Structures are given as structure tokens and as C-alpha cells.
């Protein structure tokens, strides 16, 4: 037992501490969110109902898991079998990605216990309905695509054979479902032409969301191969990753040209050159997140160097994240009239969802045959030094440092732009000239109301609105509906209709106190014989 404890203690590395801290913060935020509501945990509001959890956890999360269907199709449909070594980790990433998106959805949905409702309550006109179904079905497909690894490990040959026999139709179904919902996440915003800023709104949102998901998925596959190399000492499939980079050039190229052409076609090209928070974030997204990585991927010298390939992939992923956040947050800000910045609780939930992804990935690698055995240098625990990585790169370190600097400076500028108030060019409300002429408005007050006298009453009381209301400027809310019902004449709201409540309590006496209105010292002033 003591040895076990020591082992556990030894394993508490810096990254594990960070992970545990993030998970703890996320747990705390989760408790607040589920006990006191979204308002207590987030900076969301009636003016800004979708924030970081939708923008990052869902839109980015689903998109970055797109490597799963791209690689699965490459290997199993197009039968480029040489990509097989990276298929398993990519499908694992996708599977975990979708599981975590569902976890994040539980935080964002106001009534997550109803998450199954789209299964039985249909609305085919809703993009959200379609996305919900696709994500649910695709997560199932991913679970099946992933299942051979678990079944292998458990030695269950019969189910393994069943899954293998339907593998190709499964992959094709997965590709179809992915195509649908990757694009439909963009379609969600097609119904908001007045809210999403002109640099991002277009009926082609589904096309651009699909293209960027493919590019982002490819880049993510490269990125995670590098991470696996560092973390697990996995051999780097350099020629394969280079090929993914080349594919990235094509996808990014199509996307950039089409995107710019669409902005121009919609007459919004001028917006790019106005100095606004939106345009600076747009530049960051397109220049640093799409054009620059495309050029880097397209340059053989850079693509063949490990650091160049890694950097280009990181830029693509960053550009992808920025695009999704620009649609979900930046582009929606101006029309909302508010500035949304996520609360620390939103950030910590997002961070702990990401951390959970890393933990689960590491767990799966350690227990399942994610990588071919020979390729893993040594179990992570026993590794003392990092695997030697000969500096194969031909790109000078200085140039890369410069690019990183450019990226960080860009991110800071872009971040500062976000903080700016978005009211720059918003149409200011012109002071309204006073009404053309004072118009007498006919006021139809209810007819006098006769309160039935009780047996020992001094006399009946007739209530007349005319003696209680300034007919030029009536304030109905003074008595309605706090004291008396508006809808049922004569019906008191503040307590029962008794001598005390009328003469001393919350009804008539609340105004007739000698201060706000004449006191009730003379019975005849209200109790009068009928005219």
C-alpha cells in the first residue's frame, strides 16, 4: 500500500497539478451553474444569449474533431491505406471531442435533462433539430468506429467481426452525418442576417463552416501527432503529416478565395478596410489563420521541417478557432449593443472540458492499442528524458520566433479590439422633435363603481376614476394592480375587503392618509347617499 501511495505521489507532475486545478475550478463553476442558474455562472444576458460555451465548446469542439471523418474517409473509402497509422488516434480524438461537446452542452442548455426531447419532439424546420440528430447519430457512429480497439482489448471476437463487416457503410454514414452537421453549425446563424456582422454573415456560412472544419481537422491531426510524440514518444509519421499539410493548402486555398469573393459579392469588401474591432479580428482570422498557414504548408522547405509543419498546423487551428469565435461572439456584438466577455466560471468550465479531453486521451493511449506497439518509445511513467528529436528543420529558428511574435502581437491587438466598445458606427438615436402638435387624446375611464355597502355602513361609496386621476397624465400603476385589480373592477389585490383594510390598511388608506391624499376623517366625503 505504501509503495502505491508513493507512486501516486511521484506521479503528481506539474501538468497533473494544472489539470487537477482546472477540473476543481470547473467543478465549482458547475455547482454554481446548476444550483443558481446560468445568470450566476456566466456573463450571458438577454442581449447576448450565446457565449463561450456555444462558441468554443460546441462550434470549435465539433470542428476540431473533423479530422475523424476526413481521415476515416481517406483510409476506408478512398483506400489510401498508408494513412492507416494515424486513423486510430484521429478517430479517438473525434470520439472524445464529441463526448466532450455533449458534456459542455449539459452546462449550456438551460434544461439539460430535456436533452433527449429532439428524439421524440420533431421540428424538421429547425437547424438545431438537424444538428442535434446528426451529432447524436455521429457520436454513435464514432463509438462504433472506435469500438474495435475496446473489443480487441477485451478479446470479444464475435462483436468485433460484426463491427468490421459493417465498417465501410459505417464510415460512409459518418462522413455524411459530419458533412451535414459541420455545415449546419454555420447554418444556425443564417437566420440572423441583422445580427451577424457583414464580414461573417452570408448564406454560404454552411459551406465555409464545412471547408474550415476540413482544414481545421487536418491541422488538428498534425498538431496532435506532435503532441503524441512529445507525450508518449510516438514516432512521427512525417511523410503522412506532410501529405496532410499539402491537402491543407488546397482546402485553405479554396476557402480563402471563396470567402473573399463572397464578401466582395455581398458588397461588404469595404468593411475589411474600416478600422473596427471586427476588421482587426477578421484580419487576424484570415491573414494569420488562413493565408499565412497556407503559404507555410505550400512552401516545401517549411513543410518538410518539423517546426514549420507544427507551426503551420497551430496557425490553422488558431485561425479556425478565431473564425468560430468571430461568428459566435465578435460578429454578434455590435448588433447586441453590449460587450460580452466570458466570466471566469465560463472560462474554467471550458478549460476543464479541454483538460478532460487530454486526460481521457492519455488514458486511452495507455490502455488501448491506439498507436502500433513498436511506435511508442516507452511507457510515459518510466521515461526520464524526452525522446531525442534531431533538429531536422531547415527553417531558421529566428524566423519561427519572429512568426510566433507576430502571432502573439496579433492576438493581443485582436484581444484589445474585443474589449473596445462596439458602438463605433452604430446609428445614434436622433433626438426626436417634440410632437407636431399637442393632440387631445380621449381618455375612456371606466364608469363609476358602486361599492355595495355592508349592513353597518355609514352609506354606499361610489368610486369615480375622474376624481382620482389626472386626465392629462394618468398613472394607472399607482393603484393597479398592486392595490386593485385592473381586470376585475372593484377587486382588491392587497388583502381582503374589510373595514380595516379600507380605513387603516393597505387599500384606500394607503393613499388617503392626510399626506398623499385627504385623510379619512370625514365619513361623508366618501360615504354619500346615492344621488
Amino acid at each position, binding site marked *: 500500500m505504501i509503495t502505491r501511495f508513493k507512486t501516486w505521489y511521484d506521479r503528481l507532475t506539474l501538468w497533473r497539478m494544472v489539470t487537477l486545478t482546472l477540473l476543481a475550478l470547473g467543478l465549482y463553476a458547475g455547482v454554481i451553474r446548476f444550483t443558481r442558474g446560468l445568470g450566476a455562472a456566466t456573463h450571458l444576458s*438577454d442581449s447576448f444569449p450565446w457565449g463561450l460555451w456555444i462558441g468554443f465548446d460546441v462550434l470549435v469542439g465539433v470542428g476540431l474533431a473533423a479530422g475523424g471523418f476526413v481521415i476515416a474517409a481517406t483510409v476506408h*473509402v478512398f483506400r489510401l491505406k498508408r494513412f492507416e497509422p494515424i486513423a486510430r488516434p484521429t478517430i479517438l480524438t473525434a470520439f472524445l471531442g464529441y463526448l466532450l461537446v455533449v458534456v459542455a452542452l449539459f452546462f449550456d442548455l*438551460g434544461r439539460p435533462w430535456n436533452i433527449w426531447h429532439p428524439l421524440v419532439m420533431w421540428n424538421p424546420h429547425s437547424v438545431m433539430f438537424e444538428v442535434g440528430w446528426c451529432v447524436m447519430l455521429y457520436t454513435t457512429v464514432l463509438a462504433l468506429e472506435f469500438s474495435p480497439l475496446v473489443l480487441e482489448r477485451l478479446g470479444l471476437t464475435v462483436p468485433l467481426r460484426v463491427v468490421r463487416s459493417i465498417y465501410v457503410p459505417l464510415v460512409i454514414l459518418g462522413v*455524411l452525418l459530419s458533412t451535414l452537421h459541420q455545415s449546419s453549425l454555420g447554418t444556425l446563424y443564417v437566420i440572423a442576417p441583422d445580427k451577424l456582422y457583414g464580414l461573417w454573415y452570408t448564406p454560404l456560412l454552411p459551406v465555409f463552416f464545412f471547408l474550415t472544419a476540413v482544414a481545421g481537422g487536418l491541422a488538428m491531426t498534425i498538431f496532435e501527432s506532435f503532441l503524441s510524440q512529445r507525450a508518449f514518444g510516438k514516432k512521427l509519421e512525417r511523410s503522412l503529416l506532410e501529405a496532410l499539410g499539402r491537402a491543407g493548402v488546397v482546402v485553405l486555398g479554396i476557402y480563402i478565395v471563396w470567402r473573399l469573393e463572397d464578401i466582395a459579392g455581398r458588397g461588404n469588401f469595404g468593411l475589411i478596410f474600416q478600422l473596427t474591432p471586427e476588421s482587426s479580428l477578421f484580419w487576424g482570422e484570415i491573414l494569420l489563420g488562413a493565408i499565412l498557414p497556407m503559404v507555410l504548408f505550400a512552401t516545401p522547405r517549411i513543410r518538410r521541417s518539423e517546426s514549420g509543419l507544427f507551426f503551420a498546423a497551430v496557425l490553422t487551428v488558431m485561425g479556425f478557432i478565431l473564425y468560430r469565435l468571430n461568428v459566435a461572439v465578435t460578429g454578434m456584438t455590435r448588433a447586441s449593443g453590449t460587450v460580452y466577455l466570458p466570466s471566469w466560471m465560463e472560462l474554467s468550465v471550458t478549460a476543464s472540458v479541454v483538460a478532460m479531453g487530454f486526460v481521457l486521451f492519455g488514458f486511452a493511449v495507455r490502455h488501448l492499442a491506439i498507436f502500433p506497439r513498436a511506435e511508442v518509445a516507452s511507457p510515459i511513467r518510466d521515461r526520464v528524458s524526452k525522446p531525442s528529436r534531431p533538429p531536422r528543420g531547415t527553417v531558421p529558428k529566428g524566423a519561427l520566433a519572429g512568426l510566433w511574435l507576430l502571432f502573439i502581437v496579433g492576438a493581443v491587438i485582436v484581444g484589445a479590439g474585443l474589449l473596445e466598445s462596439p458602438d463605433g458606427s452604430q446609428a445614434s438615436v436622433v433626438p426626436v422633435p417634440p410632437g407636431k402638435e399637442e393632440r387631445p387624446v380621449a381618455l375612456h*375611464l371606466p364608469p363609476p363603481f358602486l361599492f355595495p355597502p355592508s349592513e353597518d355602513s355609514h352609506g354606499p361609496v361610489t368610486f369615480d376614476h375622474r376624481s382620482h386621476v389626472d386626465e392629462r397624465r394618468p398613472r394607472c400603476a399607482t393603484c393597479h394592480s398592486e392595490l386593485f385589480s*385592473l381586470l376585475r373592477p372593484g377587486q382588491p389585490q392587497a388583502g381582503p375587503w374589510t373595514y380595516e383594510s379600507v380605513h387603516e390598511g393597505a387599500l384606500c388608506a394607503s393613499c388617503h392618509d392626510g399626506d398623499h391624499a385627504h385623510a379619512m376623517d370625514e365619513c361623508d366625503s366618501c360615504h354619500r347617499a346615492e344621488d
Partner: protein
Amino acid sequence: MKPAILTDLSLCIGCEACVMACKEINDLPRDTDPGTLSATTWTALETHDDIHVRRQCMHCLEPACASVCPVGALQKTPEGPVIYDESRCIGCRYCMIGCPFNIPKYEWDSANPRVRKCIFCFEKALSIGKQPACTAACPTGATKFGDRDALLEEARHRIADHPDRYVDHIYGEEEAGGTSVLYLSSVPFEELGFKTGVRNDPYPRLTWNVLSKLPNVVSVSGASLLGFWWLTKRKDTLERVRRGEITLEEAKRQEPHLFGGEK
């Protein structure tokens, strides 16, 4: 009859009877700002330089909120009002993104939150043959319940009879494909905080244009993928035959679908 409301801003004196009547019939707390729409104020009275504007759900003829709701919690009733069924709602708040008038509000401070908005007093008044509480309470007739066509006719008459008194526009006649709540005003609507950039085409068509193409996308790309797979798989198998790894007969026996009909 298509139930509708005509609000003539030039007749409104800002007495807030509509706001209070709405709160009374819907049992909403009265201690929140009556000038801003919120989860507890379903009709609000904004004031722009002495002109009072009563805001409420527009009850679009083709409502975006009902179209985007994945579970049909928001629904356009055959009678006209757009109503909300909290037992269906999953809390995705897509209705708030979709509504071009920013009407639906949310119970942010609840652990079991609902979407809140004017529902035209559908159950409590309309379905038992009464008019909504707000129009019933209005002491000046500034906001008036009636049939949409009749109210449009009346609004046109008012503009024609007093062209000096009204801007020549009935807000809601065309906006978002037409709404059940209509407005007349003596000053231009954009000066009163009305969304004047709203499209005249119904919003649900924007997304339906995309969604209705999906069956084609699925069938065409599904067929293409199957075709690609068939071609590449067949090529691979023939390659193995050429390399002598298996005989053609074995290949045909193992995977007859690749060589269908060939002898």
C-alpha cells in the same frame, strides 16, 4: 379572423395600464422595470422624448422563433398567437438568436429556466373569447384588439385622414413577412428604437433554403462515396490478383459485389 393588435403611438399617454394588466393576468412580479422587456415584463413601455412605445411580441405570421425551436416548444397556433410550452423546452435559447425583434427573454437566475414573452393571453383570454388584458385595459384606445385585415384597413384610413399626423407606414404590415402586432406613429419608426432594417421576407425561409437542400446533398454525396469505395476496392483487389496474391476466382468468390455479373 386573424387576431391582431394595432398600437397607435400618437394616442398613447404612457399610463402603463397595459403593462400592469399584463403583469396581473400573467401573475408576474411588479417590482421590475416596466420600461424594459424582461422575463417578468412581457410588455414594456419605452419612452423616447415624450413618445411612449409599447413593446411586446410581434406574433409574426411566420415566426422565426417557432421555426428555429428544435423541439417545438414555441409554436404558432392556428389561431395566430405564438405560444410557449415549457415542458418541451430544452433551454438552447436559439429562439433568442433567431427572433429579429429580440423579444424572447430568459430566466437567467433560475436553475430551471424558461423562455418568457407575450403569448397574446392565448389561454387566459383569447381561447375563451376575450381580448388580451393589455388592449382591454387601455383607457385611450391607443392599443386595440381586432382582426388583422380590419385593423390594417383602419390604420390606412387613419393615415389617409390625417396625413399630417402619421408617418406613412404601418410597422408590422410587411416586416418579417408580416406580424400580428401593428404600429402607427407620428415620428419615423427608426427614431423610436424600432428595427427598421428588418427584412420583409419571412425569416424561416433563410434557413429552410439551406435545410431543404440537404436530402439532395445526402443522396448525391452518399452515392458518390459508395462509388469511390467500389472503384478503389475493385482496383486494389485486381492489383492483388495481378501480383499473384490471390486468384481471380478466389477474389470473385470472396467479394462478389465487386465483380457483379462478370464471369
